[in-house]
């Protein structure tokens, strides 16, 4: 169940692209944390700093018309799927011009234009939705796939069993990726989880599963490429567990004092962006090119944040839009 460790023929251009995108995700989230500090993002945000390698390794193998669903910790996945950072930041700030006109915010970030069918505020809920999207794809005879990224906390909810069973029984084009950062909110997942782990549970359903180092974007990229190829070939669902570490707290407001400082320090030494930079430097990429990726990402997200701050609130008329077709939602109507 472990990914191949054979000598790597590096595709430097592809990996430089990964490096750029990982920096864009990190810079976006650093800007979002700044916005939180400045009380411009009022609701909870769940940073994925330290987990960017999974977002990039997974989404770089998805087509624009493939479907992705995500969790409350979904900024990185959404950006990696191709969503517009400006619309996302406006959404986080609750502004007009956000992906959902400011009606969803961070936990419901979505961009259907790029096949991103939503982050979800309910742990594991996206597993079923992905099964259904894959079911529709199969019914319609399309060659798209549907992918769900969820956290390790999700494997103890019912949808992990019900949804994966569903995908297997109906031989659906579904990729399930467990982003295992070791913590379910503020609780160590291992302390609350029986048995040998997520991959073994999926294997028990007959779903081929692999475990990869989620902080090694190349390992994720390769594992996902194999899985996507099998899925598109009609082989049914695949499961990947990508081990990583959440370098921040559960939310922007969580100082995560339940973790020992040396545990966090050790995790920073496995920072996926630094790891990729080292790999690229070893392959002969100039430090200046790597630094340029970081600089450009920060510049972009600074501008995105500045622009979002200037965006107006949604007009109050938005409040009654898109509830449903039937009936009048206004209190005055009754």
């Amino acid at each position, binding site marked *: 169940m472990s990914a191949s460790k054979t000598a790597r023929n590096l595709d430097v251009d592809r990996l430089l692209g990964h490096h750029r995108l990982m920096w864009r995700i990190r810079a976006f989230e650093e800007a979002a944390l700044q916005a939180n500090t400045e009380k411009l993002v009022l609701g909870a945000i769940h940073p994925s700093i330290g987990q960017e390698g999974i977002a990039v390794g997974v989404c770089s193998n998805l087509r624009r018309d493939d*479907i992705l*669903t995500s969790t409350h910790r979904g900024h990185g996945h959404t950006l990696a799927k191709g969503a517009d950072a400006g619309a996302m930041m406006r959404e986080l700030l609750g502004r007009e011009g*956000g*992906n*959902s*006109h*400011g*009606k*969803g915010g961070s936990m*419901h970030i*979505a*961009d*259907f*234009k790029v096949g991103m*069918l*939503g982050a*979800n*505020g*309910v742990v594991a*809920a996206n*597993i*079923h*939705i*992905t*099964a*259904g*999207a*894959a*079911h*529709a*794809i199969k*019914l*319609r005879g399309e060659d798209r796939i*549907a992918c769900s990224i969820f956290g390790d906390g999700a494997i103890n909810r*019912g*949808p992990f069993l*019900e*949804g994966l*069973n*569903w995908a297997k*029984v*109906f031989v659906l084009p579904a990729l399930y990726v467990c982003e295992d950062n070791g913590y379910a909110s503020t609780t160590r997942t291992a302390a609350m989880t029986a048995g040998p782990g997520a991959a073994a549970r999926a294997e028990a359903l007959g779903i081929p599963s692999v475990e990869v180092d989620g902080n090694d974007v190349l390992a994720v990229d390769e594992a996902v490429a194999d899985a996507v190829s099998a899925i598109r070939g009609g082989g049914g669902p695949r499961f990947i567990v990508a081990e990583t570490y959440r370098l921040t707290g559960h939310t922007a407001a969580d100082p995560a004092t339940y973790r020992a400082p040396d545990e966090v320090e050790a995790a920073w030494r496995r920072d996926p962006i630094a790891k990729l930079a080292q790999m690229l430097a070893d392959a002969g990429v100039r430090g200046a090119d790597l630094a340029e990726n970081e600089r450009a990402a920060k510049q972009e997200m600074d501008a995105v944040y500045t622009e979002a701050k200037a965006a107006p609130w949604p007009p109050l008329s*938005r409040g009654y*839009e*898109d*509830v*449903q*077709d*039937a*009936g*009048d*939602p206004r209190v005055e109507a*009754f």
Partner: protein
Amino acid sequence: MAVMTYADAAKTTLAEEMRRDPLVWCLGEDLGRGGVFGQYKGLPEEFGPQRISDAPISEAAILGAAVGAAMTGTRPVVEMRFADFALCAVDELVNQAAKARYMFGGQTKVPLVVREPMGMWRSSAAQHSQSLESWYTHIPGLVVVCPATPHDNRGLLKTAIRSDDPVVYMEHKNLWALEGEVPDGDPIPFGVARIARAGTDVTIVSWSATVHAATEAAESLASEGIEAEVIDLRTLWPWDKRAVFASVEKTGRLIVAHESVQVGGFGAEVAATVADALFGKLKAPVKRLGSPRVPIAYAPPLEDMLRVTPAKIAEMARTLVQQ
């Protein structure tokens, strides 16, 4: 004019819609054998196992998959087998299906129908008998449909399948075999009540199987010289307050009768709305008639104790008219 059963009326519509639109499909437990009440008999043969799909006993997955499939361009019809079992899929219905359109700012709609066979069905006891329609009326985003007749089951299911909203479609188990005239297969719009019986002295608002109890009560009241008007709401969200107001303006008296528990039932919503809007026109207090707040029992006498019967409705109407 065709006469058909309540169950066949829905099946006829479903088959028609599936022929019309290849994106309509059904999923649920036991559908491959025609469904637990036979409501899908013959459809697997015509449409095959992909479009009349069996499912594991995983209500949450059934409904959650339907949400994903609805957001991916199909129109799923979900069978929940018993309304009671839909409680295993509350997150999928309430947090996902009902909210997706709004929280994603209109980027998607969730066109699905959730069929939830409801209500008391002799000695089915506490977990196979409930009427929980009022819960769903509390959830923005959902449509709630409770047909009482074969004709309405034919026309309302058509509207439900064509609707872009998630629709909770509650068929009463005791009505499956009820025969009635079905003059056409036209869609019946949501939010338009049916005057089941015209009258001038007291308005009885109801829905689902209790409409028949109300009509029977009205017939017996007529022999005593009391003319009750029976309004079948047909859909609880949206609900036809204009039809109710028009009737109560005429009669000055209102009873809302339903099989579900009276406390927090949808009758409370109707009663409060009428009391607010028509206070000056009422000749008597607005009354509700529902089940006591007791789980539904197995033994027939205990089960019957909970029923809203024609006798109970008639008695309440008599008391109101005397005031």
